[in-house]
């Protein structure tokens, strides 16, 4: 193992969202789409509305209404159920914690086990290509020392990315500053995407 591999081992990349600052603008979704050239009709990154039944509709009855948004992407779980069920090892965890689905290794539409195993519904079926797909946290950018496209696109100080093992990282700092929770903690998947306040 060389030095940089060792370095990666010490890392655990994650994202912290400050939902007070998220306005549901979807710049993150668009940036993801463009950066990863995601097939039409498929979204690796979505901004879900917590409110009414549709995007940007509120809960409640006029005028007692509420609405907020939750950016949703692969949670890069430390205990990822998708990895456990994949028969072809198409889903792997990098040393830096990023959970990567390699479509070339996916055995295709006859399986779909990962999509059922994921409690967050973030693994997409690409009917056109016959493979499963998901957010790989723009690891090609992370390897260049850059932020994932969705994080880069957020100009509202709502998204904080970084190494959760590094107390100085933006993400760690935000976690220290604000109470944050993961989605579906009861599933024991140990996600690394945090939301404040949930």
């Amino acid at each position: 193992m060389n030095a940089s591999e060792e370095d990666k081992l010490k890392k655990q990349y994650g994202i912290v969202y400050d939902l007070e600052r998220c306005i549901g603008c979807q710049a993150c979704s668009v940036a993801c789409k463009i950066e990863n050239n995601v097939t039409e009709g498929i979204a690796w990154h979505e901004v879900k509305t917590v409110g009414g039944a549709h995007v940007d509709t509120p809960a409640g009855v006029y005028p007692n209404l509420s609405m907020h948004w939750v950016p949703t992407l692969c949670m890069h779980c430390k205990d990822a159920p998708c990895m456990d069920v994949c028969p072809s090892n198409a889903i792997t965890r990098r040393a830096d914690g990023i959970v990567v689905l390699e479509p070339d290794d996916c055995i295709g539409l006859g399986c779909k086990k990962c999509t059922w195993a994921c409690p967050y519904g973030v693994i997409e079926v690409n009917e056109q290509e016959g493979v499963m797909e998901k957010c790989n946290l723009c690891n090609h950018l992370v390897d260049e020392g850059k932020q994932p496209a969705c994080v880069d696109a957020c100009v509202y100080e709502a998204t904080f990315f970084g190494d959760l093992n590094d107390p100085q990282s933006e993400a760690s700092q935000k976690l220290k500053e604000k109470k944050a929770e993961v989605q579906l903690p009861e599933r024991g998947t140990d996600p690394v995407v945090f939301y404040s306040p949930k």
Partner: protein
Amino acid sequence: MNNPKVDPDLNTNAGTQNSEFFTVGCPGMGCHQNCPLQAEVVDGAIVKVRPQPIPGAPEETHACLRGIASYELPNVKTRLQYPKKRVGERGSGEWQRISWEEALDTIAGQMISIRDEHGPQAIEMAGSGSSSVPLGGLNAGGATQRLANLFGCTEVIGWPVDGGPFVAGMVNYGFFFGGANDPRDWVNAKTIIIWGENMAESAMRDFNHVMQAQTQGTQLIVISPTFDATAAKADWWVPIHPATDGALALGMLNLMIEQGLYDVGYTRRHTVGPFLVRDDNGEFLRESDIDSQGSAENYVIWDELTQKPAAMPAHVESLADAEPALHGQHEIAGISCHTAFQLLADRAAEYSPEKTAEICELPVETIHKLVTTYGSNRPSTIKVGIGLSRTFYGDLNSRAILAMAAITGDIGMPGGGASGWARHYAPMLNGDPVYAADERRSNRLHISTGHNAVVNGDIRAMLVFASNPLNSKPNANAWIHEVIPKLDMLVVVDIVDTWTSQYADIVLPGTTIYERTDLYSVLGCTVLSQQAIEPKYEAKSDHEICTLLAQRLDLGEYFTESTDELLETMLDHPSQAGITLDKLRQNNGIMQAQAPENAMISFADKRFFTPSGRIEFYAPYLSAIGEALPCHKEPPEGRRSPLAQKFPLQFYTGRRKFTNQSQSHLSTTKELCPEPLLRMSPGDAAARGLNEGDLVKVFNDRGLLKVKIEFSNALRPGSVWIEHGWKPEDFVEGHYQNLLLPSNLPDQGMINPAFQIYWGMWQEYAEQAASPGLAPYGLADQLFDCQVEIEKVQ
């Protein structure tokens, strides 16, 4: 995983090895934020668009979803590729590809023959639309205005939609865009009111400052009928009945005066409050009225110390040893007068909390709480929303808000302000090369009268650059059936086919922002919007097209300079302080200009641009129509109008993040919002036996629209809503633009008499203005007061 939506040669995962970066001015797409973008180009194609860092204002570095998605613009499927001419009936969709040579020869030939027969003013030059950088650039109306000016064409002045708050700015401050501070100052406000605007979706960069302020403890109040993203972020949302904003402001003003929540000193020194107004004619009392030796320029105040009148010149804050009265009625030289402040107080007194609550359909406690919050928790900033301009009496409503803000003393103070426009200092550019080619001036026509001018035969041809009148003018049916058929020639220059281009005789392919070089200023910077890629297909810039036309119109001598030469001349302005094209190129195309002191605070010196130099909440020139002071009037079309018997639902459109103007051609954003849906409250739907997803017919006497419905509790019951920006092909049938009320009717002229008065006054202002670009803004052409009924399509 090839994205089938754009050219296959686009590799969006391109590395950075061969990347080149260009600063490009975002077309704004209707938001007027005009963020400088950074385009990454690999092998002649744009692979990515990110925000360009802003020197001197790093916190303003911004690109929204549309800005990011605009990388696709040069390659959109609907891109116009070559000049074409109509070979079938207008609107038949039968076209023939022609050469630029043939297209330009034909257009110039027609222009000459129309000029010879009817005069050059029979040709209307319209444009400077959404594919352009902000006004001031070569291609953002600059080249077209130069050509229009030289040839003597008619230019359309005014905006289609943005009225009320800007009218109010002109009346109260003498400046359409004055009265609110740089958004970076908003953190200094204790209270921010966003009044009638979905800023979180339509002016996203600005909204960041609102959230910054909230983080630091500022209370955000949103006053709006609709629960949108902005309302969702508010500390307090006030669900007002549409178009009753003036009543609310006057109701608040009444309580503020009653409770002494106003700044007496400021009102004396910086508003027309102490000026005496004649009871007999509503004019300001002048010194010459009471003293034959006195000046007709001077105003008169009542001095409380001497209990006598005293002359007060304009642009003077106070008189030595005098204490101007704010209240009272005085009889001077036989002329009965009231102070303007007394008149305002009397007007406000007509809006008791109970009456205000009834008009605005709000609880009485809300009025009291608003006054306590806004009036005591100061300084307070009000962003008057563009929403207020979309209603018939948007000017009155906005004026009421500005009058209320005036007496707080917060205008011109850190953390204070009230305006429809809040911006950074923008360094001026020398407009000579683009506008004033020589002494000749084009003829001017207000936008709302364009319809009549064609129908009457005054206008015989229209050249439309980067603009889509059918998609942005009210009563589109009238344009299709009454206006366009009267034209001898309709030319459209655009990047994509539009509703308007469908009816054109000749359509020319224009360049996108990424395919031409231009200059503009924003965020305290001068920005060289750089050509990032070669023009796709046969596209040409407005400047090129105008140059080629000029050569055919015997005006070639005025179009000999290169783009660089013209841009250099544009930089020849004192506020550029030595910024040159070379320096811009050495600095990524963006440089911070030297801002004057206090540039952050609008009217920090309290020297307002009005005739009196003060905030003029009283406008004597409107007394003839009873509007010298703001008041509440019900719009001619609304839920309380007689028409509501027949058409009970209020219809309006608004901005949404996905399709701000008619940008529904960007595939990435269209994927997020694939089709138009009419939002209505479940109760209104149930009353009509409608289910979610039903295809419905939305109609009134002007037109119809067939569209699917989606339930949303965000809508005030009794109103239905759809986002602006869809084209006819997006609908099953019809278009919402057919439903809307025009501000001008063929047989009546401008239907709001106040607009006729403003137009008369401000034509003169426009003539005097340094740049004709500073035209009489604020006289909106399109109103959104619109009643409809909805039924299911069987």
